[in-house]
């Protein structure tokens, strides 16, 4: 193994400390028994108890999960089609506009997206709610899905699709039975990404929400605007834990698949 230089080791250590210490502090203080948010008052899980008895957080969590699920599914379908059109669609009228529209939402500030969609929805619907949040979230999440799926499609050997067609498969048959199984990992990553993006979003949801459709970020934001709340620390800890476990499982399983594949290949030759 190559030895790391002092400089590199220091910059990595400091860098990751900066990235992780704030979250670790947040997690630790969610178990603080005291009322003061910065002074340790003994270990306690009382904030978790309060959190689970607070209807409005539970309601908001349920709304958020439903919105995120619908967004992720819809934007995965649309984003995968977008990627396929961009990578395999060849030339068509307005292609530049199309690819511009798929990249712009990636960097567009949330306030602009939120405001513009709100103005559209006001013209389309009498009342806004979960549906409008899903439509808004899908519009930007599908662009992220498209980026993830495009990069997989670009490295995917096009002769596989040609081979399927050569063996008698129609274009649709080829997409379902050859292309889709091979880009599946990227499609799944895209779904997870869209799910998290929807779960996280505050600004666009605030613009496009309506009565009875308060999402968790909206609820959290209105709580913490005026200061630190121990329940929110507890809630944050739960969310961090879920994400960490999810990412760990995902990366371990993909690492195991890679290792198995390498072993198979060595055995074959």
């Amino acid at each position, binding site marked *: 193994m*190559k030895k*790391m230089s002092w400089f*590199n080791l220091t*910059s990595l250590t400091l*860098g990751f400390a*900066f*990235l992780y210490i704030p*979250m670790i*502090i*947040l997690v630790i*203080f969610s178990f603080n028994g005291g009322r003061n*948010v*910065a*002074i340790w008052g003994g270990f306690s899980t009382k904030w978790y108890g309060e959190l689970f008895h607070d209807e409005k957080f539970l309601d908001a969590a349920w709304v958020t999960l439903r919105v995120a699920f619908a967004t992720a599914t819809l934007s995965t379908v*649309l984003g995968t*089609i977008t990627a396929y*059109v961009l990578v395999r*669609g060849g030339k068509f009228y*307005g292609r530049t506009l*199309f690819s*511009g*529209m*798929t*990249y*712009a939402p990636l*960097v*567009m*500030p*949330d*306030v*602009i997206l939120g*405001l*513009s*969609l709100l*103005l*559209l929805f006001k*013209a*389309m619907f009498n009342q806004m709610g979960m*549906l409008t949040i899903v439509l*808004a979230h*899908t*519009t930007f999440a*599908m662009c992220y899905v*498209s980026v993830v799926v495009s990069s997989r499609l670009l490295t995917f050997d096009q002769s596989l699709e040609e081979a399927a067609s050569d063996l008698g498969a129609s274009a*649709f*048959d080829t997409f*379902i*039975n050859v292309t889709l199984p091979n880009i599946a990992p990227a499609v799944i990553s895209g779904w997870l990404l869209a799910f998290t993006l929807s*779960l*996280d979003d505050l*600004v666009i949801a*605030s613009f496009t929400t309506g009565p009875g459709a308060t999402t968790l*970020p909206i609820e959290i*934001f209105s709580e*913490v605007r005026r200061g*630190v709340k121990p329940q929110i620390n507890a809630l*944050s800890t739960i969310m961090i834990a879920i*994400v960490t476990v999810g*990412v760990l499982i995902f990366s371990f399983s993909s*690492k195991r698949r890679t290792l198995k594949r390498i072993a198979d290949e060595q055995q074959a030759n």
Partner: protein
Amino acid sequence: MRFSQTLESAYASKADLVLAALLAVAGIALIWLNQADGSHFTGGLLIAFAVFVTAYRINRRLAVIAVPYLWLLVFFLVPFIIVVKISLSDPAIAIPPYTPTLELSEGWTGLKSFFGDLDFENFEFLASDPLYYTAYLSSAKIAIISTAITLLVAFPIAYGMAKASEEWRPTLMMLVILPFWTSFLIRVYAWMGILGREGFLNSFLLWLGIIDDPLTMLNTNFAVYVGIVYTYLPFMILPIYATLEKLDVSLLEAAEDLGCTRTQGFWLVTLPLSMPGIIAGCFLVFIPVLGEFVIPSLLGGSDTLMIGKILYEEFFSNRDWPVASAVAVILLLILVVPIVLFQRNQQKQAEADQ
């Protein structure tokens, strides 16, 4: 029978056209009856699906392209046109709170009076009130400075990752991505607990005896900078790491072989070759920070002027839709240049990779 074959046989037997006709009728009926909220939307969706099924028969390729294309036109491009239109209207105490509204029922005269009532009043207002242009300038200043700081913090981390051994790299990469999957709001919120007057950092410094009185850090521009650097750091690290990782070690060896010192090698080889990653990272931070709302409203103070926050307040607190729209239009115009530059940078990189 396979799923795909089932659909194909439906296609072959023209069952799809029957289905399309039924859906279209149902959609029209929904819109006509208008019984529940969103029935216009559901009806529209059904009709759109019927149109798609029919179009698929005429030209498969175009039908497939049309689905995401139309979605983005309706939900991305059309809203901008509406924003521009409302920015040219006048505020009113009505629903919707602006005039004129387009009355298609009045025909040509309605259209004429509609365009006649549009004007640049809101933009004149923005130009006359120093609040707005100082907010734009201050947003730009904060975005530029924080992008520079993020770059300075991110580069050594990305460099260290690229120099780490092969077996460690995936783990380090995961450690950078993990915060990205964690809620943005929570990451900003974490700093509220640290930077507050009675927060963790002040208690810690008092305990160490470095300070005697707690420092005011929260609700200052300092906190805004910390928050931006912290939350946007992964966006800077990842593109830089991607270019550094691809960098061929033999290039540096060749430079040393030709008489460069290590430091010269870094400045003359590593840095120029990592430029595409640096540029991409800077855009990925600069553009969204310019319109940032959450960080200034949670960590910033009353003197932190950022245009995203102004827009949000103009809309929700003052309910002045036309002015909020005008603010958005100007922000968009400011952003067009960096967004176009960013796309060209990405395209150049994609071509170089092929």
